[in-house]
């Protein structure tokens, strides 16, 4: 109550400061608009409060005066009083006390703060004091220190920085310290951020639940608030009630805990699905190019992983160039890298097709071996050029950070990769279905000779289809450079997974690839907590090996004579 009054006085005295501006804090960090609106709202409240119970600056003077004593008990009283007073200079005074820099003048018991440079300022006004004569420090003992700690917590509840307020509320939630209650009430009264207000109310609820003196009905109502919070901390709080708690309260706590566990399980499943989708997107990106070369053309390209790697190295080179030529473009570097990677990997793919694979059509096993050879050469070439160690690729600022939805943490880079995977997939699908090139590709893959007879240049269709698959692998490389080490071995890490995805999904079917990638991604994330990452992966491999026995052509198999 005092705090609100105080801010009202601030407005009244004409200093335009944020309403919840606690003593001594540097509130300039907050945006003006927000400060203004908060101040206006506070002024409104203040007007009412001034009528109800005026508090004056003199009160604060008296409070501060109370530090000028030798009695520890009085000092503790002064700390508590100041902390809940909402006095603007409470924080610097208490901090000074904690550091042993609070002193009072022997002559008139005026209280000063000694600054690190040994100059003094008035504790009350914060104005420099020139000549102060002999001073005595305000004394500290453990009781005082404890009071200070509580006071600091209480003061943080009023801190202008919302993050500080939030963490202070969280601290109270965890400590469930009854002494913080008055400060908490005060803070709730003037909190404007609904998110923080909610945290504070939860903290208050925690204090009430933990307080054996509180009325049972209040405690049960508080349990309801905690259940609504519904996270691990809430669960811990409900589980920590002492055995002496009245049975009714205990029962309420237990049923609330059950409810929380249930919702948490759902959220956890949601989080797993989310992680699974993001892993699935990575798999999809890595595999989709393979789905074209293997699925559509029937070519086993063991160098596919190296196309991904080349995409990642292209990103590195692009960023390196930008760093030198136009550092300001760093945030859009990925958008420059994408077409570059597509072109570079695609061109290498076309070269491989023209020089090697073209001679091996209809001999899949030989193709497999030759392209494995290509992959060795490419790896070694990159190793020789760029060195064997990891290369650093910068993550643009818009790809870092995260948002929270309920108990779901959604990181920007995962989100970006998922969106990117969807775009690539959709574009590719449209491209193959709707463009003349796509039609020609399908014609050639279904009946090469007939397509040739109809005037389709099968050679070029082959080369461009392979180039397309490789180019998409290059795009995948750009995305993977953001989440994986850019090293010559990057591709090797993905090739087996990619093959698993394509084979699992069914060859020649992009939708199958999508479903397979997502299924494997999600399954992996659900297995991980139980089996660990490595064992989970082994289990999936074994699963696919068994699955192929049952359905040798994958989930979405083409049927009929054409495939034999």
């Amino acid at each position, binding site marked *: 109550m005092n705090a609100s009054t105080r801010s009202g006085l601030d407005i009244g005295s004409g200093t335009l400061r944020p309403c919840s501006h606690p003593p001594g804090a540097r509130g300039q960090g907050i945006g003006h608009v927000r400060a203004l609106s908060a101040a206006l709202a506070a002024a409104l409240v203040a007007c009412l409060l001034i009528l109800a119970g005026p508090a004056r600056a003199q009160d604060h003077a008296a409070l501060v005066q109370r530090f000028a004593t030798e009695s520890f008990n009085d000092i503790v009283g002064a700390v508590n009083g100041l902390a809940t007073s909402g006095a603007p200079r409470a924080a610097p005074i208490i901090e000074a006390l904690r550091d042993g820099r609070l002193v009072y003048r022997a002559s008139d018991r005026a209280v000063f703060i000694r600054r690190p440079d040994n100059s003094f300022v008035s504790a009350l006004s914060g104005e420099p004091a020139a000549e102060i004569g002999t001073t005595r420090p305000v004394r500290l003992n453990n009781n005082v220190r404890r009071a200070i700690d509580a006071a600091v917590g209480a003061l943080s509840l009023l801190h202008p920085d919302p993050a500080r307020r939030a963490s202070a509320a969280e601290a109270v939630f965890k400590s469930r310290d009854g002494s913080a209650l008055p400060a908490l009430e005060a803070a709730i009264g003037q909190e404007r951020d609904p998110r923080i207000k909610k945290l504070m109310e939860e903290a208050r609820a925690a204090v009430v639940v933990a307080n054996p003196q509180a009325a049972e009905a209040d405690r049960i109502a508080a349990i309801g608030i905690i259940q609504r919070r519904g996270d691990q901390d809430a669960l811990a709080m409900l589980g920590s009630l002492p055995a002496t708690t009245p049975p009714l309260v205990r029962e309420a706590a237990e049923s609330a805990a059950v409810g929380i566990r249930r919702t948490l399980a759902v959220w956890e499943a949601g989080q797993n699905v989310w992680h699974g989708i993001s892993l699935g997107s990575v798999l999809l990106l890595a595999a989709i190019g393979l789905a074209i070369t293997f699925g559509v053309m029937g070519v086993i390209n063991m160098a596919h992983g190296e196309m991904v790697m080349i995409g990642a190295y292209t990103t590195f080179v692009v960023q390196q160039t930008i760093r030198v030529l136009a550092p300001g473009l760093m945030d859009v570097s990925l958008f420059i890298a994408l077409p570059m990677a597509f072109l570079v990997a695609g061109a290498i793919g076309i070269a491989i097709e023209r020089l090697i694979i073209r001679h091996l059509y209809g001999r899949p096993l030989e193709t497999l071996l030759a392209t494995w050879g290509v992959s060795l050469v490419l790896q070694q070439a990159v190793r020789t050029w760029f060195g064997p160690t990891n290369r650093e690729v910068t993550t643009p600022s818009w790809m870092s950070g995260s948002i929270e939805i309920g108990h779901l943490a959604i990181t920007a880079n995962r989100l970006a990769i998922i969106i990117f995977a969807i775009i690539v997939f959709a574009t590719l699908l449209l491209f193959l279905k709707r463009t003349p090139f796509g039609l020609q590709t399908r014609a050639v893959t279904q009946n090469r000779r007939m397509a040739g007879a109809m005037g389709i240049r099968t050679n070029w269709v082959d080369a461009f289809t392979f180039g397309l698959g490789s180019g998409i692998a290059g795009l995948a490389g750009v995305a993977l450079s953001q989440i994986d080490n850019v090293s010559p071995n990057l591709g090797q890490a993905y090739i087996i997974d990619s093959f698993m995805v394509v084979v699992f999904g069914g060859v020649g079917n992009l939708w199958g690839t999508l479903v397979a990638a997502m299924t494997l991604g999600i399954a992996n994330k659900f297995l991980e907590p139980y089996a660990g990452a490595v064992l989970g992966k082994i289990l999936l491999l074994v699963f696919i090996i068994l699955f192929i026995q049952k359905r*040798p*052509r994958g989930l979405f198999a083409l*049927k*009929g004579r054409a495939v*034999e």
Partner: protein
Amino acid sequence: MLIDPMETQLPADPVKAIERPQVVTQSLLYLDGVSVSFDGFRAINNLSLIIAPGEMRAIIGPNGAGKTTMMDIITGKTKPDAGDVIFDGQIDLTQLDETAIANLGIGRKFQKPTVFEMHTVEVNIEMAVKADRTVFGTLFSRQSAAIGRRVDDILGIVRLGDHRNRLAGDLSHGQKQWLEIGMLLAQDPKLLLVDEPAAGMTDVETGATADLLKDIARTHSVVVVEHDMGFIRELGVKVTCLHEGSVLAEGSLDQVSADERVIEVYLGR
């Protein structure tokens, strides 16, 4: 090359096999109400056909009528969606795979001649000759004089004696046809399914093939698919005309070729 699991799965559901009414027939091969579709396309539609022991039957019909698919079903390559395929009175062929069916005594010559190209003509025949077909049996088998004589006989019959040491892959198309017929003979099956044996042969060779088949038919049951009407006439046996997966007409060649619908869809006016 992969085989579609849909086409090759072994009986997955034994209960179903038992529930099925036991069909016992006097015929060697009995197809009743057989249907199969590929991705919605009905290649065989409620087909019924009976081959008596010792009978030779000619099958005709336009391209895509389902003649080859019918053979696929009999030999276990394709599993029918519905219907019974009974061999030798009581053996349900739909429950068996290709190997088992071959070992029951059903031999097949493919429409496109298929021989072992990296083996010599002689070895091709030798592998087909009826003998122990297990792994260990073949692993420790010795060249027996009896088998050698049989190979010689067959090479004589199909007139490939001079080519016995050539690789099968080097033979001409017609020679491969003959070789495949020879392999079929060597198997000594109860029922021979011969898909377009005269395709790509000269008139003289076609005649010789017809003679050979007639000869074989004296001791075996034979089903021949052919488009060559002269060849069919020479065989002089009962003819079945298939169309869109089912029987359009059946009877002597004259009867069938007088049938309005057969003329409509196949022979032309």
